[in-house]
């Protein structure tokens, strides 16, 4: 079969009138697009992934990048993507890998939900002038309190509380492992979350020694490969998260290509250098919900019941019932990762076709837990496709306690969502372990960007709450009355338990 070269995905143009041959594009491109040839810069557009590193560093704005310079004969069924996937697979005979989140144009539920604001009958609250509380506690809460109230007015608390994580904003950074992203990227995030008073996940990559100073803001992950897990690791985390599944690839384990396993990653993960780190699809000690319970309790026992244990699952059709099982397992929080969740590497077919949106999953999980009277047993953390503060407000209205962001935090550090993370060539120094690339990311500078992003969202969230006449985030949580669906079908409105606009 002869397929020939498939049409270019991107075309890179250099405006010769603007170009001063400084060569910054040549130095910055890690994909080999540019080459200096005498007094010209030659371009190989085929290598371009549109990461924009070149144009971002071109001092003259001389570089333009165009998507899809060659048209296919248009066809509503046989789209360009469909045809190219076939070309690719016909050549390789393999599973096609892809990066970042779901790339099919499913409707985005967040964008069909609108928030409420007060007018006349109740005043909106101005966060510049009145207290506005975003503080959130993650973990198990008692469903009732036992108090000893004496005649002299003193009140004694009899109920013992389980350990909770205290966060000053309901926004955390999700699990992106050292290996998937660079140590500099992890360090930038760690600095940001520790300054803000929130948390980040280590991912399934262990905890590098240089991050120990930030350990009280770290949630350490135990995934099916058990990479990097020992008692030292567990004890350093503020909380422990068992990863069952991930929104980008429900039903699969992790896959870190060998190219990204440098010496330091190998040491932190406790695996051989250069080997593919493939974590199994299921945990080989969890074949049922009661096995999960044993692992939750073993981890608690190992850390003297001092740390909350979270369980992360991919949002799938039966999430609500699964979450109800998790809530009964002694776990303190359940993380629901929607099908838009990002990843360093996932089979394209899983990334695009398996799982459900986080909005619907969180709504049904919250409803199920309330129906069974066990909502206080676990916090709900939503992740996968949280793009802005409005998404945070909406998912909290649908029942989440807090969110994890991933891609958004990477974009704050320069990521252009080119989706080529699995190649380990990230020109921004984020999804790579090559020293010449990782050194491009200055953790101090980028930590400010991540901090700014979370801070900005937090301010916006406070304003949105104030406009809705709410001064404490617990009154937004599960408050679906403050949402309306715009052009959502009746079935989905029922699942979300949200009325339509105008109703």
């Amino acid at each position: 079969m002869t397929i020939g070269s498939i049409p270019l995905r991107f075309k890179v143009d250099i405006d010769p009138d603007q170009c001063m041959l400084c060569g910054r594009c040549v130095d910055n491109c890690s994909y080999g697009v540019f080459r200096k040839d005498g007094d010209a810069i030659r371009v190989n557009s085929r290598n371009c992934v549109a990461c924009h590193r070149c144009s971002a560093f071109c001092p003259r704005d001389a570089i333009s990048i165009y998507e899809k310079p060659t048209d296919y004969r248009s066809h509503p069924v046989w789209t360009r993507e469909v045809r190219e996937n076939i070309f690719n697979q016909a050549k390789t005979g393999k599973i096609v890998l892809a990066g970042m989140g779901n790339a099919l144009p499913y409707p985005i539920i967040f964008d069909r939900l609108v928030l409420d604001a007060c007018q006349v009958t109740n005043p909106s609250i101005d966060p510049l002038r009145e207290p506005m509380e975003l503080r959130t506690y993650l973990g198990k809460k008692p469903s009732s309190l036992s108090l000893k109230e004496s005649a002299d007015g003193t009140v004694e608390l009899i109920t013992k509380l389980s350990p909770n994580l205290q966060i000053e904003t309901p926004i955390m950074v999700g699990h992106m492992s050292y290996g998937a992203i660079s140590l500099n990227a992890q360090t930038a995030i760690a600095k940001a979350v520790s300054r803000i008073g929130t948390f980040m996940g280590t991912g399934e990559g262990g905890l590098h020694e240089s991050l120990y100073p930030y350990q009280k803001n770290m949630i350490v992950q135990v995934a099916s490969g058990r990479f990097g897990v020992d008692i030292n690791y567990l004890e350093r985390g503020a909380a422990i998260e068992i990863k069952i599944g991930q929104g980008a690839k429900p039903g699969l384990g992790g896959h870190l290509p060998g190219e990204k396993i440098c010496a330091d990653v190998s040491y932190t993960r406790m695996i051989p250098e250069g080997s593919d780190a493939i974590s199994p699809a299921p945990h080989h000690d969890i074949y049922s919900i009661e096995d999960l319970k044993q692992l939750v309790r073993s981890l608690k026992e190992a850390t003297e019941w001092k740390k909350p244990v979270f369980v992360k699952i991919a949002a799938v059709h039966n999430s609500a019932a699964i979450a109800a099982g998790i809530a009964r397992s002694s776990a303190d929080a359940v993380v629901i990762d929607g099908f838009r969740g990002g990843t360093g590497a996932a089979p394209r077919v899983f990334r695009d076709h398996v799982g459900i949106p986080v909005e619907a999953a969180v709504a049904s999980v919250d409803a199920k837990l309330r129906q069974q009277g066990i909502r206080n047993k676990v916090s709900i953390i939503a992740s996968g496709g949280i793009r802005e503060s409005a998404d945070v407000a909406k998912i909290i209205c649908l029942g989440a306690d807090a969110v994890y962001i991933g891609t958004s935090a990477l974009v704050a550090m320069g990521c252009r969502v080119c989706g080529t993370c699995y190649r380990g060539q990230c020109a921004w120094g984020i999804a790579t372990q090559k020293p010449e690339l990782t050194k491009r990311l200055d953790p101090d500078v980028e930590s400010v960007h991540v901090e700014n992003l979370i801070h900005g969202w937090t301010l916006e969230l406070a304003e949105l709450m104030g406009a809705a006449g709410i001064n404490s985030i617990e009154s937004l949580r599960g408050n679906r009355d403050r949402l309306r669906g715009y052009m959502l079908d009746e079935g989905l409105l029922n699942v979300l338990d949200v009325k339509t606009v105008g109703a």
Partner: protein
Amino acid sequence: MCGIIGVIDKRRQSVDGAKIKEALSMMNERGSGEGAGYVAYGIYPEYKDYFALHVFFDNIRENKAALDTLLEKWGTIVHDEQIKTYEQPNIRKVHTPWRYFFRPDRSLMPKSTTPDEDIVTHLVMKINAEKNGALIFSSGKNLGVFKAAGWPEDVADFYRIQDYQGYLWLAHNRYPTNTPGWWGGAHPFNLLNWSVVHNGEITSYGTNRRYIESYGYKCTMFTDTEVVAYLIDLLVRKHGLSEKMAVRAFAPPFWEDIDRMPPKEQELNRAIRLAYGSALMNGPFAICVANENTLVGFTDRIKLRPLVTGEYGDRLYISSEEAAIRRMEPDVDNIAMPKAGEPVIGRVIS
């Protein structure tokens, strides 16, 4: 808007219904003539051991038999009668108010620690959710709610509220935005011995409703106020908290204040906020809530609605307006304005 007033006599001496009518009418500026109501405690001494169920029937012939059958199934009706009303030019009598004195059969709720109350709660929730032309709007012992769509004076005259003698009263002058003209939407709201009057809007209603419904309560009145009655029933009757601690859960201190408290107090307040975060009430409100022994007034955490208290002799008054209190008791002492979120509690001592 809306105007509220409550009074309690701590030695259970009777207060005349005529006075509360006058006081409530002082606040007509806060109402719109589309809803008013009263609750009086101590009005049925001869039936004080029975649950007094006040019911709005849409139609006696069609709707009453079903309710009678249901009540007989769950217990005994010792007496029932139409609540006497007197025609008023400004009130359209769209319902027939009825009262039952009812005793539940405890053996039908074997696992409950408060079987009588649980049976009555179950019946109230069931009947009101079914919407079969009967609405139970009052279900406590030795107390009764009287309400309708109209101005306070007209509603009072409709029931001849001056004929009732109570040691504890709540009354409400309504400016509706949600369900104007609906008798069920007028305050007070009642469940068992709890009655609530409320001025304001609860912006956390969606959260509060989902929370309370997970404990088997059903919100059926299309208004935010009823959750207050159910929440206080849950926290005080079922969870055993004092009224003071329940109000702490509804309008808790801010974290920045909690952070500055001594460790033990900090721990207590954090526990309340963690356990009862979904019971926290947000938005502008002033609320009076009562049971047979207690009158509690409180506002939201930043006091976006007015609340004034006054004392005279054995009586504690709580109202939206000082003028209303002075109408009842011109020589009132200790007029005060409670701080945001801080409850004012009056109790009977005999």
